[in-house]
């Protein structure tokens, strides 16, 4: 019924029938146009404009055809159906076997219209395919420029590497390296042609740079001629950025749109059937401008151009060689197409004189702008790369620096703490280095202690003596950076190895405990005493007798001292009393002998004692009662290896630190008696501990021959120093911090004591 109504409409109303015919054709056309606009005109306004116009043109042609058809309809009035479709002639043949003139005419007209229709369809297809070719070309250009960008990036990195090498060379040898190729991308880029013309002696790398840049320039000219200009560059840079991971999605999408627009634009020019002249779109405009611009560039630089020509050929070859991966077929296609496009471009030049002129008026500026833009872009990219390179290099250094800074800071703080500010300025980049070697003992040095203020220390040895050392009275040792110090005074009273030392806070009195069970009290001689002065019996100011076995631990608090002995007792003394022994503290038999003792520094009248059972007990010195027991049930399964060699109290915090035979250092909370932290600190038993006066650093010594400095804040090892040799299975017996000066010291079984600054 639809056909009937159409027929009646065609018969009754010619214009309407013609309109319907045109409508059919136009409908096809418009649908094709729709396809075109969909596929090509995605983003670029110009592209879509061009397409719509071509679509209109086609529509116009078809409308004409439609007019003919309707004219036919008019003539063949009798032919009942009046069909505009293919069925028309068949019907006519069926009904009227003879050929009538109108029938033939109708058939011819019908056939012609059909061919026309097909032709227009082919045109549309061709336009579509050409648009696709253009798109692919655009992509190829993108990839090429991407590749050249990457090549440039490689060059940049090479350049950066060269610079770094030069820098390294300069740092190492103090002079500039003999062959340093200065690579100034911006300058060369800006004054490209001139430099190429004059520079005949540029080194190879530079030549290659300029050649590829020329090739690049040529490519850009081609691009300009075919209308790939800023957009394509944008696309390229976007690609580069996206590859470099600098792009966000929105930008990427935009670039895709741009690409589509470009494809449409080229499609418009490629079809070339009639629409291109009317193309008022931006791409065409720009291509014109670009073309005239290139012309304008060529004219003043003709001389150069000629001289360059050879180079350009070479360059082309080189560039093409570079782009070999694209394959020979495409290459030839490309040549053809680019030739075509060039022709089109020249056509444009010829026909659009007005436009060219208009463009020429702003040409110089535009050229400059473009040049500047391109230059800027290049520069930016260079800078970006430079920044990246520098950034990464800088970061590397920075990272190191930060590490160093950390450690510097640590040492700095430490030295500041140690010196109370006096050596703070010199404390930068400070690591502890062995400076003084105290060699005079015949046997292992069991203990050492610093004078609270002076650079003076006392060592106690298994050779039954104590020695007084003044670090300011030194003898420069031969062939050695370390200084030898000779002892100022030898304290002789013990009849066996001296095991422990204590010093009064004033630094006037020193106490020593020995294997003989005695605690000897000494008045320190002047630190400037002549080592071979007369014997002064008053130096030995008394003996505290009370322990019945070796005295292993000794520590002082104001005028009191507390000692622990292998006889199982801990005794509190006030050496200058008539009855020096104040109190004795004994633990149960199960605890075994005390091995080490210290005053709890932040709690008056408390002492902490380490027992062979690997427990620590905090006593109240007034009541003699146990206050806290430091033990951790889960830690203490199998006590055998956890023997405590040394216990020290943190100077400011309620923390007790213990050095264990099982290589651990453990930290305890004095108030709750719980284990705070436990760490394997050495390769062999930890024998000694010392905390600096500010409670920031911990020094530990071990039978593994090394002393380690720990940051108490994060419990990390700041420095390790191998300090002593082994005698039997023992190595380091004691470590110490100077309370106010930047000295640390270690005492070893090899009979030496070492002082580090």
């Amino acid at each position, binding site marked *: 019924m639809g056909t009937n109504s159409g027929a009646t409409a065609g018969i009754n109303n010619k214009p309407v029938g013609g309109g319907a015919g045109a409508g059919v054709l136009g409908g096809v056309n418009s649908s094709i146009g729709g396809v075109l606009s969909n596929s090509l005109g995605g983003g670029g306004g110009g592209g879509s404009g061009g397409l719509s116009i071509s679509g209109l043109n086609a529509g116009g042609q078809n409308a004409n055809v439609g007019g003919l058809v309707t004219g036919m309809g008019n003539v063949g009035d009798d032919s009942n159906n009046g069909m505009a479709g293919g069925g028309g002639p068949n019907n006519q043949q069926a009904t009227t076997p003879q050929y009538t003139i109108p029938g033939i005419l109708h058939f011819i007209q019908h056939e012609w219209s059909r061919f026309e229709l097909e032709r227009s369809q082919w045109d549309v297809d061709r336009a579509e395919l050409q648009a696709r070719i253009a798109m692919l070309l655009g992509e190829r250009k993108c990839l090429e420029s991407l590749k050249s960008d990457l090549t440039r990036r490689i060059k940049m990195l090479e350049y950066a590497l060269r610079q770094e090498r030069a820098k390294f060379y300069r740092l190492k040898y103090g002079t500039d390296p003999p062959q340093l190729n200065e690579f100034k991308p911006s300058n060369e880029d800006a004054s490209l042609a001139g430099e190429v013309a004059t520079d005949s002696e540029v080194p190879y790398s530079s030549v290659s740079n300029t050649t590829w840049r020329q090739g690049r320039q040529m490519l850009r000219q081609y691009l300009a001629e075919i209308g790939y200009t800023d957009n394509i560059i944008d696309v390229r840079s976007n690609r580069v950025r996206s590859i470099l991971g600098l792009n966000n999605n929105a930008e990427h999408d935009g670039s895709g749109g741009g690409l589509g627009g470009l494809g449409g634009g080229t499609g418009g020019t490629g079809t070339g059937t009639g629409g291109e002249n009317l193309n008022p779109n931006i791409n065409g405009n720009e291509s014109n401008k670009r073309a005239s611009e290139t012309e304008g560039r060529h004219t003043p630089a003709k001389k150069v151009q000629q001289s360059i020509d050879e180079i350009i050929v070479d360059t082309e070859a080189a560039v093409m060689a570079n782009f070999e991966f694209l394959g020979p077929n495409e290459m030839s296609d490309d040549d053809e197409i680019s030739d075509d496009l060039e022709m089109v471009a020249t056509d444009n030049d010829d026909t659009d004189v007005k436009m060219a002129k208009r463009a020429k008026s702003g040409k110089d500026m535009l050229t400059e702008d473009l040049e500047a833009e391109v230059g800027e872009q290049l520069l930016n990219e260079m800078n970006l790369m430079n920044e990246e390179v520098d950034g990464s290099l800088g970061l590397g250094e920075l990272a190191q620096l930060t590490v160093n800074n950390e450690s510097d800071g640590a040492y700095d703080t430490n030295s500041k703490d140690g010196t109370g500010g006096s050596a703070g300025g010199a404390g930068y980049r400070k690591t502890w280095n062995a400076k003084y070697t105290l060699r005079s003992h015949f046997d292992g040095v069991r203990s050492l202690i610093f004078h609270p203020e002076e650079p003076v220390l006392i060592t106690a040895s298994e050779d039954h003596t104590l020695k007084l050392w003044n670090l300011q009275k030194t003898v420069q040792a031969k062939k050695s950076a370390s200084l030898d110090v000779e002892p100022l005074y030898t304290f002789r009273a013990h009849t066996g190895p001296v095991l422990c030392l204590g010093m009064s806070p004033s630094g006037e009195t020193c106490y020593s405990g020995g294997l003989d069970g005695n605690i000897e009290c000494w008045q320190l001689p002047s630190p400037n005493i002549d080592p071979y002065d007369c014997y002064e019996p008053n130096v030995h100011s008394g003996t505290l007798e009370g322990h019945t076995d070796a005295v292993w631990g000794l520590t002082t608090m104001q005028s009191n001292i507390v000692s622990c002995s292998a006889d199982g007792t801990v005794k509190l003394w006030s050496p200058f009393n008539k009855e020096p022994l104040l109190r004795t503290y004994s633990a149960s038999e199960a605890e075994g002998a005390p091995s080490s003792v210290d005053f709890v520094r932040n709690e008056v009248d408390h002492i902490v004692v380490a027992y062979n059972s690997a427990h620590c007990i905090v006593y109240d010195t007034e009541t003699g009662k146990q206050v806290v027991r430091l033990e951790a049930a889960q830690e203490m399964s199998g006590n055998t290896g956890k023997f405590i*060699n040394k216990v020290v109290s943190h100077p400011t915090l309620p923390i007790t630190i213990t050095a264990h035979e099982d290589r651990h250092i453990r930290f305890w909370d004095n108030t709750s008696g719980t284990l705070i932290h436990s760490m394997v600190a050495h390769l062999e038993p930890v024998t000694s501990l010392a905390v600096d006066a500010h409670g920031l650093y911990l020094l530990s010594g071990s039978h593994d021959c090394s002393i380690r400095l720990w940051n108490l804040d994060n419990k990390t090892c700041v420095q390790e120093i191998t300090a002593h040799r082994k005698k039997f299975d023992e190595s380091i017996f004691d470590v110490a911090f100077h309370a106010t000066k930047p000295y640390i010291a270690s005492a070893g079984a090899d009979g030496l004591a070492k002082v580090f600054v």
Partner: protein
Amino acid sequence: MKMADGSTILRRNRPGTKAKDFCRWPDEPLEEMDSTLAVQQYIQQLIKRDPSNVELILTMPEAQDEGVWKYEHLRQFCMELNGLAVRLQKECSPATCTQMTATDQWIFLCAAHKTPKECPAIDYTRHTLDGAACLLNSNKYFPSRVSIKESSVTKLGSVCRRVYRIFSHAYFHHRRIFDEFEAETYLCHRFTHFVTKYNLMSKENLIVPINVGENAAPGESEA
């Protein structure tokens, strides 16, 4: 207390060790000692086992460098002489012994000073021991304890001569102290044996008559 579990013996004097257990560990053969202080360890081990067995203590192991052997023994003598000095300090004062003498034949001048000085006996003792300690620990003459320069070995003789005077002074002026000390350590006995064996002192200087003990040292030294 020194014995660790099983086969490994850790020779350590841990804090809290009783005096009687100090250094009381199984002997270690010299060849198993891998320490640079092996000779000292070995000598101390022998003395600890039996201080009266002078002959064994002074028997140099095979393949032992003689310089090091003598040096380490002399260190040990000087170290143990501290014990004698401690005892002398209680009795020998500048008032009682104004000069360092043994017999009336000689007055010994103290070499610790720039110009040798007539120090009182106790000062002489202390100065001599301190000086010996400095010399024997000198980085210049004895930088190493595993090999001794030939030129430094000659220094040992003068050290021996000087420290021997402490024995002789104690013997002739503080006989009680000397005897007590000798009974405990056999030090003079060992020393005489040592200097004779290695020819570090001339016989006429060995003025302390060594008791004819079970070791028959005097006879041998006179022989």
